[in-house]
């Protein structure tokens, strides 16, 4: 795989993060709010890319991990009002447990079969949320009493730097020997095992890491929105958007997922005048990217850089 050097990409990304960290000085709170959500979305998509792009697991249920994190944090805050960091940590921990549960079938079944298991996991979580309404708020959603801060700018910076740190860790991991072993076990588990790598251990690790970041981001985003609902965290459509963000950003690039997430959110905002048709146009554009530029945005960027 032709790729620009790891440190160079990280430096460019760091410069970009620092540049956009000055946005609160000149941009309205409304746009900051949109970007805050886009950054959390970017983390969801990066975590998904680690599982799919590297470990080769077709996970249709990123929202199973995200939703577990968001709802655990929210329910805990509703019931006992512990410090917020404790709720967030509990959310991440619950998502990791969810990741282990999701990993168990993945070690047994492959491809579309596993994809279906993850889809089932999402439907089960959704059923649980709707049926246990006294705990979860049901279809109306869960209101979370505490917030981290009410300042748009601070919320924006938290999301931005959280995304930057998560992205750096996930990206470094993907370019490390561990990432290569994951990629090898994703493409041919038998051969990777024959070369002496412990495929099971590495896949389990990938699930745990992906779940940790998904859950952490879900919990933080729930506190930012001060609510959690099926429509924002669990619904299959949300999962599809996460997958689309990762795919149009460029699979197996980790950082591309952020570009995809920002693109998705920016587009649905720009196309808002179209009303109900805006989603249709966004998805149509995503489909065109998938059909014509399978490498995604990140693929286009790195390729043009190499030819130029």
């Amino acid at each position: 795989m032709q790729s620009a050097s790891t440190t160079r990409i990280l430096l460019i990304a760091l410069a970009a993060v620092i540049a956009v960290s000055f946005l609160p000085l000149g941009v309205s709170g409304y746009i900051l709010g949109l970007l805050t959500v886009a950054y959390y979305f970017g983390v969801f998509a990066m975590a998904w890319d680690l599982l799919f792009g590297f470990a080769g697991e077709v996970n249709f249920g990123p929202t199973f991990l995200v939703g577990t994190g968001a709802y655990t944090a929210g329910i805990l805050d509703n019931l006992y009002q512990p410090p917020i960091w404790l709720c967030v940590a509990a959310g991440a921990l619950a998502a990791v447990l969810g990741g282990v549960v999701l990993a168990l079938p993945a070690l047994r079944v492959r491809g579309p079969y596993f994809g279906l298991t993850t889809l089932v996991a999402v439907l089960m979580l959704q059923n649980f949320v709707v049926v246990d309404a006294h705990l979860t708020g049901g279809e109306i959603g869960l209101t979370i009493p505490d917030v981290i801060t009410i300042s748009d700018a601070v919320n924006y910076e938290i999301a931005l730097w959280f995304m930057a740190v998560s992205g750096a860790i996930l990206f470094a991991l993907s370019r490390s020997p561990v990432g290569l072993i994951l990629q090898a076990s994703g493409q041919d588990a038998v051969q990777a095992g024959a070369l002496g790598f412990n495929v099971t251990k590495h896949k389990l690790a990938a699930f745990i890491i992906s779940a940790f970041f998904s859950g952490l981001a879900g919990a933080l985003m729930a506190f930012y929105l001060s609510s959690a609902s099926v429509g924002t965290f669990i619904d299959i459509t949300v999962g599809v958007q996460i997958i689309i963000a990762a795919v149009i950003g460029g699979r197996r690039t980790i950082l591309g997922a952020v570009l995809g997430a920002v693109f998705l959110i920016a587009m649905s905002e720009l196309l808002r005048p179209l009303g109900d048709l805006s989603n249709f146009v966004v998805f149509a554009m995503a489909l065109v990217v998938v059909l014509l530029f399978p490498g995604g945005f990140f693929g286009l960027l790195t390729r043009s850089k190499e030819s130029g």
Partner: protein
Amino acid sequence: MTLFWQILIDGFAISSLYALGATGFALIFGVSGVLNLSHGALMVAAVVAAWAAGDQLHVGPYAGAAIGVVIGFIASLVTYFLIVRPLQQSQKIREEEKEIFILTATLLWGIMLQELIAYLYTNNAKTVAPIVQGVVSIAGVRTPSNEIFTAIVCWLVIAVLWLLVNRTRAGKAVLAASMNPRGVTLLGIELSQVYIAVWAIYGVLVGIAGVLLGMFLGVSSYSVGPLTASAFSIVVLGGLGSVSGALIAAYVVGYLETLTAYLISPAYRTIPALLLLVAVMYVRPRGLLGRR
């Protein structure tokens, strides 16, 4: 006792419909290895077309149903030529990644159709005027004639499909392609012709299943995801690529859902089937009658 008969009759009608819906899905996978995640959207498109023809153009129920089937047929071929074929023949995508690209693209396509239908005809549930009306009494249960009609049509169509695949030359080519694509090309049969034939058959099946569903239960644009998921789970439960497995699985799922809805609560309708699916995948990942 009435409850028993009610569950038996209702479950049979639902299951037959599931069987018809899943057969096309299984056929496409068996022959071309494609999991078409826009399945639910194609079905809903057929229903909405039939509904719009009856409700807005005021055509009769037969013409409305025919229009629904034609739209299902067209939508299926559009899906193949616009989405699936370009990806299958793409030079930019590596072979082992094509499967996931087709999954993502058909998923996107399905959501696009869903959004478009919601935009043009709102999210409201739509029921197609049934061809057969009235109520008959079977074993003391008042059953809409439409329910019996649905079951009969489903089985007629499945029987015709069986004859088509097993008794005609073109059908045998399709069957052979599902067993060994390379062998078929060596015999001088154009594989892409087989694919087009399969997607055409699939379109008709989707159209008929959709229209029947629209007459029986009605659908809205929200049904797209659940319809795809139910076809997917029935096909996986039966064993990917096995049409007879899908037929059995359709009855298992249909009856399990009906039992739950009647005996426990309609809110839990889908849960036991999902649990069964997970259990089967742990114990026997290739499904009931799966080959691989």
